[in-house]
């Protein structure tokens, strides 16, 4: 009787333990899957969206990648994108198991994947990035472009002033 009670308790505890994957989906930093592109978030700097991981997918493009584990970091006070990416890299490297699944045996897989790529038209190297992160990177690059254009115009006017 006591054994049954104990076994039942253990089973219930295991069944209702919070899953790491569900926690990630529920986190506020999770990807908005095409339901809302968050136009308000578009105006937020990238630093508030820290922690979105990405994978470089190597090998068979048909392989279903592990769900991106998304973690929300505390927002930084300074605009330092290099630091953000460093943090993202550390997060990436901390998931050694997931990364190694994509990268291990790459040398052996390359020929196979190239052959498969020829047959199946799947890209042998791909990047698992969300649209949300891609959009933010585009906004940053656009801002950099405009800033550089303004700088370049100013430099030219200074040159002509000499």
């Amino acid at each position: 009787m006591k054994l049954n009670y104990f076994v039942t308790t253990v089973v219930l505890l295991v069944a209702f333990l919070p899953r790491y994957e569900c926690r990630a989906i529920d986190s506020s930093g999770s990807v908005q899957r095409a339901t809302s592109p968050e136009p308000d978030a578009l105006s937020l700097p990238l630093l508030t969206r820290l922690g979105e991981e990405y994978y470089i997918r190597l090998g068979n493009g048909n392989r279903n990648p592990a769900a991106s584990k998304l973690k929300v970091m505390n927002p930084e006070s300074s605009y330092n994108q290099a630091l953000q990416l460093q943090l993202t890299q550390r997060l990436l490297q901390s998931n050694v198991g997931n990364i190694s699944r994509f990268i291990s045996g790459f040398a052996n897989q390359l020929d196979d994947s190239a052959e498969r790529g020829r047959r199946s038209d799947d890209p042998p190297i791909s990047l698992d990035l969300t649209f949300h992160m891609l959009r933010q990177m585009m906004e940053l690059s656009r801002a950099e472009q405009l800033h550089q254009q303004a700088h370049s115009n100013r430099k030219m006017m200074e040159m002509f002033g000499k």
Partner: protein
Amino acid sequence: MEGTFREQLFFIVLCLSVLNGDTRYIQENKISPEGLFSLLNSELKREIQDELIYSRPLRCLDMVALEGQFTFTADRPQLSCAAFFIAEPNQVITVEYDSVDIDCRGGDFIKVFDGWVMKGEKFPSSQDHSLPLMERYVDYCDSGTVRRTVRSSQNVAMVFFRVHTAGSSFTLTVRKPVNPFPCNIISQTPEGSFTMVIPQQHRNCSFSIIYPVEIKIAELSLGHLNSFPIKKSLPGCVGAGDFVELLGGNGMDTSKMLPVADLCYSFNGPAQMKISCDNTVVRMVSSGRFVNRVAFEYRVLDRQELQRIKENSVEDFCFNG
């Protein structure tokens, strides 16, 4: 008589000016390095060119919209890196390898891809690109000594790279030459306008906007022999060699996206449609017999509009359950 002779003289001078194209320079308002360089001496030109070449470090995950030199230096092994390149719709991208210090035999690589690839889906799709997939990857370790410059077919490209040793480095020089006949474009902005022209070429061209947008088609000109509907047995645009389709989906590959609308008759708009997908594409299919043109503008949908569409739409295929 003297007045008539003066008028004739002015008329001749005006004609000569027009023929020489001098009026072009009057209309030139943009400050461009090329326009100003012609007025400077060589020493000043050299100084300005050094100042104007943009350079910065390349990050492991990066997006570059500028011309310039970008140097990646590994402070530790970096096994999974990628950089996106994007240009204006009427430009292509050239990537030149400079000062490459990597260990190809040790597993390092630098691969430039002609297009963008994300989650196993590529833009442009295989249907819309002239090269087979494997030829779209150019590996420095395979061909870097022979082919130091890679040129994209459209306004986007990307590079994948991996270095195992701290201290390894390479420099990429990115330029954006003009493409007179742009085909296959990713918009850099969530709002804008574009006119896509396919001048008697048998090709398919896509304009991709990676936002949910409202598209307003101002003009569609498909070079049918006449503007009246051609009698066909099949409904819609089936069988039409020249048409425009609006696609929506949650990936990069246009061949895997769902058609929202097909347009195969010329009209002067505006005709508008809201597409609430992560990626919205205007794709023109051209038989090559006619000059086809579509002019449209687009703006991003706000949260309220998206919510309304989600509530009202019968088939909200872009919303994941």
